[in-house]
């Protein structure tokens, strides 16, 4: 009987030690300690022993039960703690994941730009990419034979229809169709007959226009300062430099402190410490007259920026042509 008890105890402890889940443990508990369990049955057989052996056997059997109880408790604890570190899954396996597509860097830069202006209450408008001479030039105070037309090399469809050389025709179309006050941004493609390391014949611009009763040059500075600080960072300096666009007066180029060298002078900024990022100005009265607004009643400002340029500065892209090659080795970096 004592040998049988010892054998049962060892069997129970071995099985408990090997148990891998809670279900097995509960099965083992009933197999050994349940009403019909093996240890319980042995204890019940105490009566069959000679009287002098009974107390000792009873004590041994109870001890065995306690040992098994303890082993079960321990095993439960062990299972709750989870498997040992060296017995778990291969944690170094790369993750299982769906393929992630990327938005084109031009789209991403465009979104950064538009986000600032839409939060300022600018409406997003799109107008045609193929335009008449009137919308692309003449209404913007660029009469035929004006030397300023040399500033932009134009793709012609016929004498009167062109690929828009800038997104500025949107100003005319929007003002023709709406009364002031208004504030809009117009993202889109523009085309110039130019192709080299720093020019692609197609590129993206965002045009902006704000017109109201008393909009001043100081307001233009305010809005564009907000824009630069939100897109490039609050600590980036900017300057407004007098320039010329036929459809604004005064006109200003906006330069920001070089984001590469922090204004120290480097190859990207041509050692000047400044980078030109957009053109702007107060809407020329002739433009208002061309859309039927009274320049004595309204004033406004307009601006336009190259989106590729902004993407290049934000992400350190050094070759404009990469934007239109659709090389996945490029696109998947953003």
């Amino acid at each position, binding site marked *: 009987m004592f040998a049988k008890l010892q054998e049962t105890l060892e069997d129970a402890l071995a099985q408990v030690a090997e148990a891998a889940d809670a279900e097995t443990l509960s099965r083992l508990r009933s197999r050994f300690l349940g009403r019909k369990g093996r240890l319980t049955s042995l204890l019940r057989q105490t009566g069959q022993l000679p009287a002098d052996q009974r107390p000792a056997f009873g004590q041994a059997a109870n001890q065995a039960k306690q040992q098994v109880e303890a082993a079960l408790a321990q095993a439960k604890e062990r299972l709750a703690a989870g498997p040992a570190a060296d017995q778990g899954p291969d944690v170094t*396996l790369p993750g*299982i994941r*769906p*393929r*992630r*597509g*990327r*938005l*084109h860097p031009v*789209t991403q830069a465009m979104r950064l730009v538009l986000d600032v202006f839409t939060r300022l*209450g*600018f*409406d*997003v408008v*799109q107008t*045609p*990419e*193929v335009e*008449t001479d009137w919308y692309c030039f003449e209404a913007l105070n660029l009469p035929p*034979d*004006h*030397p*300023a037309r040399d500033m932009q090399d134009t*793709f*012609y*469809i016929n004498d009167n229809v062109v690929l828009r050389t800038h997104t500025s025709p949107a100003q005319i179309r929007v003002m023709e169709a709406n009364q002031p*006050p208004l*504030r809009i941004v117009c993202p889109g*493609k523009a*085309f110039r*007959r130019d192709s080299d390391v720093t020019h692609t*014949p*197609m590129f993206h611009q965002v045009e902006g226009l704000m017109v109201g009763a*008393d909009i*001043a040059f*100081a*307001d233009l*500075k*305010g809005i564009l300062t907000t824009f630069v600080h939100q897109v490039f960072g609050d600590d980036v300096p900017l*300057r*407004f*430099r*007098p*320039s*010329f666009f036929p459809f604004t*007066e*005064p*006109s200003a180029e906006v330069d920001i402190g070089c984001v590469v060298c922090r204004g120290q002078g480097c190859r990207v900024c*041509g050692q000047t410490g400044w980078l030109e990022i957009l053109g702007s100005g*107060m809407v*020329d*009265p002739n433009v208002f007259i061309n859309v039927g607004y009274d320049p004595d009643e309204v*004033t406004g400002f307009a601006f336009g920026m190259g989106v590729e340029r902004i993407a290049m500065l934000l992400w350190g892209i050094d070759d404009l042509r990469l934007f*239109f090659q*659709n*090389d*996945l*080795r490029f*696109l*998947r970096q953003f």
Partner: protein
Amino acid sequence: MLVPLKWLGEFVDHGLSADELAAALTMGGLEVEGVIERHQGLDQVVVARVLKVEPHPNADRLSLVTVDAGDQPQTVVCGAPNARVDLVTALALPGAVLAGGLEVGQAKIRGVVSRGMLASPRELGVSDDHSGIAELPASLTPGTPIVEALGLETQVLEIGVTPNRGDALSLLGVARDVAALTGRPLTLPPDQPPETGEPIDTQAAVEIKAPEACGRYAARLVRSVTIGPSPLWMCDRLMACDLRPINNVVDITNYILMELGQPLHAFDFNRLAGGRIVVRHATPGEKFTTLDGTERQLSDQALLICDSQKPVALAGVMGGLNSEIADDTTEVLIESAFFDPLSIRRTSKRLGLSTESSYRFERTIDQDGCARAAHRAARLMAELAGGQVAPGVIDVHPRPFKPANITCSTRRISRYLGLELDRDQTMEPLVRLGLTVSPGQDDDSFTVRPPAFRPDLERPVDISEEVARIYGFDHIPVRSPVAELAAPPRAADQRLRGRVRDLMAAQGFDEAINYSFAHPADVDHLRLAPDDPLRRVVSLLNPLSVEQSVLRTSLLPGLLAAVRRNLGHRVPDVALFEVGRVFWSRPDEQLPREPMRMGAVTAGLAQPASWWAGEQPVSLAHARGAAEFLLEGLGLDSLQFAAPQDTPPYFQAGACLAVESSGRALGRLGEVHPRVRAAYDVDRPVFYLEMDLDAVGQLSGRPPVFKPLPRFPGITLDMAMAVDQAVPAGQVIAAAWDDAPDTLRDVSLFDVYQGKPLAKDQKSLGLRFTYRDDQRTLTEQEVLPDFEARVATLLKRFGGQRRA
């Protein structure tokens, strides 16, 4: 515009370094694009006087020249023919770097050591002359550095002049801005020549027959000139402005062009028949040979300068071969005229001939400066070419400049700029610019009369700009505009494009952007029928290349080219999409239609090779899934996919689906026809999905309709059946719904299997049926009869075998 700094300093004593000046000009509206450093190798070149010339002991053509170069006499070897005693010339000492990059050292020439060399004007970089060593004025002190002695221009500003600032295309014009920006006075160069002999009007005459094109013609006559090289300081300044010195008379006209911005022309007076100048339009087709030797055929818009018999110059653009200054010229007639900007621009454009003169006339020159420029040219010809200036000037001025009277309001200018300026503060920068400004009656208004050199100033807004740029844009405050706080209407199409991009990227497609241009052969590559609307391309008149000579009517060619490029880079699994416009010409409309499209292509594996996914190549079902994911993501429901009536020819027949919703065609998808992809050198299957975003936009944006959540659980029952491979799964699914009770809520295909133990031409389809009642819990017993009846119908209808 190139601005040599010493020259500029003669007009205004600005007291600024090159960098400070560049910064001031840039912030004042004349953008300095760079500062060019010149003559940097000349610090070891000094003035030297020849003391002795001896023959070289070992060479006939060389001599040994001893010079006084400040300290003790030095002897150098020289091969120049003009080395002579007392000649003052330039000695380049070891260490000097001459124009063309020659580094001067100590050399042994035919056995004689020469420490340095005597240099020609070309070697000094001050002219093209290499006929001998430089001949310098005898007044120069030996030993003086040559740059200092000759006043050579060592720093040149490169200014990008905007088209509105024709006035800044001269040293004088830039100096005016410098004077205004720094508050320093402006000094004009002397211009009155000494006069002798017969007055000009007894010898020459000018007649203007086209006063609308020639508003002014001033002429002076200089006799007895000696043609020769210009002094080196003048050559150097011309070279600094990128002009080639030619001879003293021509150089003087170019010098004044740069200095005063007035294009001049010098005629050989003896070659002007009748001593007359007649300004007239060309006759249509009239021929004229310009001094570059080209015979040009003119339109009647071109303006000609003629003598009494023949044309002698193409007005404002280029002189004629028949009257140009030659080495034997002795009498010079100087033309200083004002030509109409538009007339010159049209002629210059038509002939494709742009010159320094035409460039300035196009941008309007200073009409009131014509006579002064003629005087100054005559004066310089007297000084530098020994000319005798005939008294008087012929000045025909049919259309004098009429200054505008611009009435301005201080308050308006302040409000326009967002500044607080009083009237004096507003007027001050204008006065500094040389404008005539008079205060008005009240303390607000004032009147500006711009001089002829600023014809761009016409309106009060032009005056605002001048105030702003001289006052400084930096001084205008930065403020937030005050505007009505109105939410703009929702830009629905912009939002739609944004969501389309997000949904495509979310399912693993990368975004492409192709040029809107296309090759005219693309429509052939797409196998389009002759009358296919996609053949209605918009063509460019002046494309950069044939590859970019039309506008795209489809996104597919660009995307296929992108697939090929990436496969070429060994990026094997390509999924690209593009959102953009295509262009369809409309015969009855001026502008083409610009439909908005989404196109997507996939090739290779659906999931790039990985440790968990099988190597599943992309298929029609992937393209369809992409369409479902996209359209459902946009809130479109009841999508219908069906083989289209006419498969577009760029899809493979039988592998194409059209998708519609609510009876509206939204797009198509399918396998690209092998011939089409072959035309773009793509060697493996490509699937293409095209969506009409204008149509999608009409349907999307409908808000979802909430349905209460089911309160009772449903029951799912699965079945699998083996059918012939040719049986379309879609038909089986559709048939499973025939006469369905309203408790049947879903039938989904959960498995398609081919292979053992099925026969070769068989496949197994696994369908899962879901039943639910909204009012109570269904039991399996209740739904089994319907389920079994459906299974039996399907088996019978499709000849299937139920699988365990």
